């Protein structure tokens, strides 16, 4: 994407705290995606990545900061504003098994989605449904099928078709292939790449699998325990990760024929936001943390800030 493309989605110091929760699950997150761009939000479960996506479409409320869509402030939008957000942004969920109405035939589900924004008469509606199915590589005979009659990959295609029905400009992809077999994942990833270039869509993709992100995104943001630890162009990130957490995530991707060299071991399990470690939230698990490297004591006390760079990292002692 060229730098000059107008900003499509912007998050400015967004924080989110669930009612009754003792701590923010998302802490002062900044993100910018230009029109037609594709940003990958990467992290383990509990990192807050899905919560960010849900806040953008108003499924959860943000408790601080500002969310702007195509230059318009849509933070915690209500009423007509929210309706506009939802015809601009759509979401594809992780498990197509749960994200499709189990008792609605494919055609009915698409017809409902199409009719939200545009009015069609009978034959035109049928043609529009056929067009949407064709976009995701399904034939019109799927119209009268129910979700339980489809394979996992076909269901996810239907879910993608439904999200396209309102002609959105931004699509949030929440682990779009995590519940699919590897062979099916490939076809869905290819489809998502094609759709983006064909329709000029803007993507915000969420995954814990960096290899998947590499296929879908041109920029990557790595989240850990509610805040962004590293953000930059995908190619640079994979070639030379600067945060130890990013390096560990990249290292964890299975490699065909085994890995060369030793594995980066993260000590312990991910921490909990309710019990966020002081200083750098990653310091307890970090292979370059104060428990491993003697003079890295400041990681315990001082919260690292993102340095202001095209490829930015929040770490006191980044990977060399």
């Amino acid at each position: 994407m060229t730098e000059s493309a107008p900003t499509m989605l912007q998050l400015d110091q967004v924080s989110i705290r669930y009612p009754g929760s003792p701590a923010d699950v998302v802490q002062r997150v900044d993100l910018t995606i230009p029109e037609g761009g594709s940003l990958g939000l990467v992290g383990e479960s509990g990192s807050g990545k899905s919560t960010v996506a849900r806040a953008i479409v108003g499924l959860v409320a943000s408790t601080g900061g500002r969310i702007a869509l195509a230059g318009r402030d849509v933070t915690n939008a209500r009423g007509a504003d929210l309706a506009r957000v939802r015809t601009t942004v759509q979401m594809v969920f992780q498990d197509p098994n749960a994200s499709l109405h189990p008792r609605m035939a494919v055609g009915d589900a698409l017809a409902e989605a199409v009719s939200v924004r545009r009015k069609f008469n009978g034959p035109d509606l049928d043609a529009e449904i056929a067009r949407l199915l064709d976009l995701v590589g399904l034939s019109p005979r799927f119209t009268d099928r129910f979700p339980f009659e489809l394979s996992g990959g076909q269901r996810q295609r239907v879910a993608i078709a439904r999200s396209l029905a309102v002609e959105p400009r931004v699509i949030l992809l929440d682990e779009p292939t995590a519940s699919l077999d590897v062979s099916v994942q490939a076809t869905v990833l290819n489809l998502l790449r094609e759709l983006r270039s064909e329709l000029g869509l803007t993507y915000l993709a969420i995954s814990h699998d960096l290899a998947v992100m590499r296929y879908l995104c041109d920029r990557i943001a790595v989240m850990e325990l509610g805040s962004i630890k590293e953000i930059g162009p995908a190619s640079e990130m994979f070639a030379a990760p600067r945060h130890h957490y990013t390096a560990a995530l990249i290292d964890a991707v299975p490699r065909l024929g085994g890995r060369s060299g030793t594995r980066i071991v993260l000590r312990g399990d991910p921490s909990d936001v309710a019990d966020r470690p002081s200083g750098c939230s990653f310091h307890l698990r970090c292979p370059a943390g104060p428990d491993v490297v003697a003079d890295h004591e400041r990681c315990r006390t001082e919260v690292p800030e993102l340095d202001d760079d095209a490829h930015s990292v929040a770490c006191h002692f980044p990977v060399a």
Partner: protein
Amino acid sequence: MTDAALEISDLEVSFGTGKHRTTVVHGVSLRVEPGEIVGVVGESGSGKTLTAMAATDLLPAGASRDASVWRFRGIDLLAASRSARATAFGGKIGVVFQDPMSSLNPARRVGAQLADTARQWGRRSRSEARDDAIDRLRRVRIAAPERRVDDHPHEFSGGMRQRTMIAMGLMTTPMLIVADEPTTALDVTVQADVMALIAELNQQEGTAVLLVSHNIALVSEVCHRVVVMYAGKIVEELAADHLAEHARHPYTRALIGSVPTLEADLSRPLTAIDGVPPDPGQLPAGCAFAARCPSVTDRCLIETPVLVNGVACWVAT
């Protein structure tokens, strides 16, 4: 020749009886040597799980098994009664399932569940069994096992539960660990951790492992040998380090090509396997993969290929 850890030949698994009988695993032969890690790879519905479950006497209700040879540590299981099979497997096999949330009893403490196994098969006293449980939890890298042993499963993360299932297998001295998609529900970092633990146990204790997964890259990282299944049959069997370069079956190659890697050329799409697998209960004539195969020939549509020299394909050489 020493006895295999687990051996089953000409396995058929069917559901239903009489007119409604459908066979979904067709003539699969599987052998796991002591100390060997064997991976079984395939898509959902390929019969990989049923094969592993049939070989370890864990078939779900309604499924029936038929085989010509079935041995565990040299003990013939075909003629054995259900209870004799349970004794043969008892304490010698560990099982790790896909869903860490439902594989432990939520109402009982973790330590008590581990101790059950030791008391049943290792004839240990209550306090000895508890000490064993703490020791095994430490072995699978659960921090502060003395404290954690009294936790309930809901206090454990997904990765900790899968490690606990492995610890449960280790309460006695298992010959074989069967892991069915043990990391599918886990984060990649935790997945790497669990796989490293499995590989480490294999190296240090000589435990054989039967690993079932849909992810061929994951399997290739830890396994010695890989068995590729498609529509209820084995289509290829090869050493794991031959996967990347020497896979011969078009299906195996397509599976490999479909894995997104950190090195692949981004300007090209991933290899997609178009279409869906046939229902293993109603296989077409000829090769089951023919309809999706890029190198299909006329022969493939008529004659069913058999497994010769590790590959079941008329085209592969």
